[in-house]
């Protein structure tokens, strides 16, 4: 019997295996594939969410490309990527290698403190920072206390400062996640590697670039993927702090999706923005994993 079936892998035939996968797939299809396809479909219509929709073809997508306000909202999302992903990665690498090298006492304590922002709900963070950025808030108090009166301003109402100010909240939020991820990665690097590097006469800086950095490439990819996605889909922070203002200087795609779907009754257009955003997030994440994968081989 076993010999006759030797062509296939051991165990039950493949068809049965798919049967096991079916329940999970159904859930996946019902809660992910169906909404996704439905969104794509709605994005091809002009719909107020209520009455019968009219076919719009690619008009909604044309609007995403041609409307300067929408285009700039995607630009703002890219600026946020710098604040959410690039800056935390650079700072996180520094922090993690210091914590890793210094073998400080109470490492667990510092790790917890750095990670703490991740535990707090984004809405709470938004409300707190909005107060700190207020014209009479603590950020300005601090600046005035050290004599930098000229820098004090209504941060969220200043056309040049608002987007970086919102982005900085993201930096503060993501540093913890990135640092803890990298710290875990660095903890797994074998001590022999460092020893070998030192025997070859490498200093701490050389050690960092020759040993530490290549070894945590996987963790960096994970950190980048998570933070880039968080940056691109930022909604709550903008909703709480600036509502896209002043003018349109902090509007981001996710906020536009909400605004169009629930405030303006333009569900088709909202779906189109959402689909484009999903595509961009998908492409960027694939890009990051590809680069990380190729280099680690």
């Amino acid at each position: 019997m076993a010999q006759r079936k030797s062509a296939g892998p051991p165990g039950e035939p493949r068809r049965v295996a798919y049967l096991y996968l079916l329940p999970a797939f159904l859930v996946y299809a019902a809660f992910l594939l169906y909404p996704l396809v439905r969104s794509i479909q709605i994005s091809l219509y002009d719909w107020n969410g209520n009455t019968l929709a009219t076919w719009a073809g690619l008009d909604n997508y044309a609007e995403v490309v041609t409307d300067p306000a929408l285009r700039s909202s995607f630009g703002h999302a890219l600026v946020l990527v710098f604040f959410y992903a690039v800056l935390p990665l650079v700072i996180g690498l520094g922090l993690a290698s210091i914590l890793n090298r210094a073998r400080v006492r109470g490492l667990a304590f510092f790790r917890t403190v750095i990670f703490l922002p991740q535990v707090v709900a984004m809405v709470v963070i938004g409300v707190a920072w909005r107060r700190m950025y207020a014209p009479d808030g603590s950020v300005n108090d601090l600046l005035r206390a050290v004599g930098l009166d000229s820098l004090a301003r209504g941060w969220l109402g200043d056309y040049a400062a608002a987007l970086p100010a919102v982005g900085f909240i993201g930096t503060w939020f993501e540093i913890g996640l990135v640092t803890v991820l990298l710290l875990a990665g660095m903890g797994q690097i074998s001590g022999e590697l460092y020893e070998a590097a030192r025997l070859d006469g490498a200093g701490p800086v050389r050690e960092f670039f020759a040993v530490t950095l290549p070894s945590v490439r996987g963790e960096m990819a994970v950190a980048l993927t998570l933070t880039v996605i968080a940056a691109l889909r930022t909604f709550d922070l903008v909703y709480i702090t600036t509502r896209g203002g002043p003018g349109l200087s902090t509007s981001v795609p996710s906020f536009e999706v909400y605004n169009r779907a629930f405030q303006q009754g333009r569900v088709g257009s909202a779906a189109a923005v959402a689909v484009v955003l999903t595509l961009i997030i998908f492409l960027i994440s694939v890009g990051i994993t590809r680069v990380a994968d190729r280099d680690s081989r």
Partner: protein
Amino acid sequence: MRSRPTTLLATAGLIGAVALAACTPGSNADNKPAASATGQVTTDASKLGTVTLTVWDQEVRGGQADQIQELNKEFQAKYPNITLKRVTRSFDDLKTTLKLALSGNQPPDVFQANNGRPDMGSFVQAGQLVPLDRYAEAYKWTDRYPEAVRKYSSYSTDGKTFGTGTLYGLPQVGEVVGIYVNTAKLKAAGVNEPKTWADFEASLATLKAKGELPLVLGNLDKWPAIHVFGTVQAQNVQPDAIRTLGFGQKGGSWKTPENAKAAQTLVDWVNKGYLSKDVNGQGYDPAWQAFSKGTGVYLIAGTWLQADLGKAMGDKVTFMLPPSASGTPAATGGTGIPWAVSSKSKHPDAAAAYINFITSPNAMAVLAKNDNLPIADTAEQEATGPLGKAVFEAFGTAVQKNALVPYLDYATPTMADTLGASLQDLLAKKATPEQFLDTVEKDYSGFVSSNG
């Protein structure tokens, strides 16, 4: 080839999902009214038999919650044959869930539908609301609710024209944007309460010269400046022209010298330092809270702040309609969220009886008692404090003299965003008054021409 079965499965799933999604969005909404819109109205609710009414409202805060609880209790006591099933939601939650509920098969019988086009307008368009004209006649609402107020919940039957036509909802409370005055500070500066718009502008200069902050405004939230601009505009532009623009009706234009003058006035106020510094960086709530603690002399804001400011400032604050330039007052204002009836309700008569009950003369007294601004019979109501009295008087005058002009963001579904963002630009001098009017005109005329 390892991934082939996965691809196959994903394709199968996608095809299945497409098949499920194949119908046009909105095509499953069955909006045939359950009850006929004609025939005799039964106004005696006790003769309607045993009925259960599902009510969705957003009266969840402070005095709002108190008044509706009290009125519901009275209603139940008077009509034991009607059972109320009340569902409460916050304003935002109600707004987002109502649309789905109304297109479903079991919508609430009575609910609060926001006045604007994205809400009430689209419900009317979809045939989801019962026209209330018959009830207005039977219950004599038209006698107690002047046309100036009914406008705010009236649409043409196709839902395209706002501010005229058939009545689709009835509000309980009124709103008007006026000027809160810190009377103690005004007196200390030796300034009398301004009676004309010229007086008001002169007092701004005097107050500034004496080192006071004349006008408090926190515009981080984008919409507060709409009320300040609306107030200035109402003193420069004919009320009917503002109504055409505000309700998004055909035939108006933003590009007029009067509107330009209104926009220029705001810029002048910024240049002369009459408004709070960092006006776009300050939140709305912190701004009025600062006013209540003694920052600034004037605050242009709506009657909804009455309870809070009255409590904090006692007799050191009063409220007035914007002193008018022409002698006839004009002020931005409107109604609380109107109550409407679903066209799928099996008991429209009972639903209308409920709305009549919570808007009756007795209900207006209950509203006043709980620190709300009753929309009808306002002058006859007893306010809870000196500020309340001033607010009731101001609103009564506004309705009586037909002074109300609509919120400008009613005009088009996108106007709240357009106006909010471009007013921030104007205040920060990122846009000139001309550029500001161009932006707003583009939104208005684009909508009007596509609305047909």
